[in-house]
């Protein structure tokens, strides 16, 4: 059974601490819209707050003496320290990176930046990212299989899609984000992908991209799904 939860409702009669909740008088209350299944609480909305070791997709926002400021789809900025860098970036460049540290005001130090070229970014609620990835990467793998696109999922709610039928991959990702909380998601997404191909009179393997598709190492993909 599933309950729709609004801010201020009692979730547990004892204190538990997790995102989307707060503790008062030894009870745990919800602080955001959530769904409660059995004993598990899943927030429906919320902005991304940086967490150490998350893989994120950012956009270079500003160059500074000490390095770069990165937009990470969050109220907080990421920074790349020039000490860690061997290459330079232009403002507007899309990069993937890993969060090494987060300071007391939630600013994130990023490392291992990698430039992403020639694809598209789509943004979804960061709380929906686990559904986009799927259990053991199952959802991402299905999307890649049907669309022929390469898909990099940032924990910060940004997804980078490159090559293949990118437009279809983007539509499917938006569908996942919109219906993440409704039962039977995987089957519905699969039916959607098959229907789109049937309409286009194509088979998944015959798909082609609208956009340029420069060669890029396939092994990068695996880093996207930690």
């Amino acid at each position, binding site marked *: 059974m599933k309950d729709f939860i609004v801010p201020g409702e009692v979730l547990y009669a004892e204190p538990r601490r997790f995102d989307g909740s707060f503790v008062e008088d030894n009870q745990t209350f919800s602080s955001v819209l959530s769904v409660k299944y059995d004993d598990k609480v899943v927030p429906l909305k919320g902005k991304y707050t940086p967490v150490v070791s998350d893989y994120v997709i950012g*956009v*270079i*926002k500003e160059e500074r003496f000490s390095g770069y400021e990165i*937009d990470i*789809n969050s109220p907080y900025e990421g920074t790349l320290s020039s000490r860690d860098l061997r290459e330079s970036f232009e*403002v*507007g460049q*899309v990069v993937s990176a890993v969060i090494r540290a987060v300071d007391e005001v939630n600013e994130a130090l990023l490392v291992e930046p990698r430039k992403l070229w020639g694809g*598209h*970014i789509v943004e979804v609620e960061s709380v929906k990212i686990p559904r986009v990835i799927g259990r053991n990467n199952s959802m991402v793998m299905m999307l890649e299989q049907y669309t022929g696109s390469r898909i990099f999922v940032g924990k910060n709610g940004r997804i980078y899609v490159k090559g293949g039928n990118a437009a279809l991959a983007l539509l499917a990702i938006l569908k996942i984000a919109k219906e993440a909380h409704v039962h039977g998601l995987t089957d519905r997404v699969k039916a959607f992908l098959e229907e789109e191909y049937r309409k286009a009179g194509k088979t998944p393997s015959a798909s082609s991209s*609208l*956009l340029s598709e420069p060669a890029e190492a396939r092994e990068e993909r695996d880093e996207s799904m930690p």
Partner: protein
Amino acid sequence: MAREADIVDEIRAEYVKDVLKNGQRVDGRELLAYRPFSVQKGVFPNAEGSALAKLGDTQVAAGIKFDILEPFADRPTEGVFTVQCEFLPLAHPTFEAGPPNENSIELARIVDRGIRSGECVDVEKFFIEEGKVLGLFVDLYVLDHCGNLSDCASLAAMAALTDAKIPKVEEAKIVRQEYSGALPLQRLVLSSTFEKINGTVLLDADGDEDAASEGRLVLAVSDDGFLCASQKSKRAAFHAEEILALFDLAKDKTAPLFRAIKA
């Protein structure tokens, strides 16, 4: 000083341009097609006329109020017609509260000029007595900015005018919520707004296309086929033949919008 436009907007603009290279739009529309639109009249019955227009995700509300004013000295027997526009801070992440800026003034002026030069409202009928005339205020409220504010605003303004009633005036005072009749309109005027991106012209930009646009042409046409007001905006230029062809297109493309207002 305004909040700087999100750097991420530029990335999205790049995406729009890439897709447009193949003659396609991100949302799958034809280049010269409007998004789905709707007009709802009489949404704010406290006002003497009102409407909510939606064009895709863009939403603009319009309200009409009448007040008794002093006429302008050079036109002592004519009423006063004013269009104002507010970009509410809730309509876009970069909008801020404050006095009108160049964008909101430009938008109000475009709508105003179209209605004024189309002589939609007969201000000579607004004379009450010496030193007193009716003033008609059209307030445009931008609620959600997802591209093409000009057409959505002109649709809202015109729909609100067709919804408007002239208040009853007794002893040179307005009796609120009582009316002497519908506001007569001599003709209707609506705009079609074209954007130029990498040399490609498209109609009715959505939010990302709006950000990507390099040139804009607003053409306000009347339901009897006149061009009533025009505005070339942004950096990119247009050719004379282009503008003439777009005038014909504007007449075609506004036809269903006029029908919706008259319905």
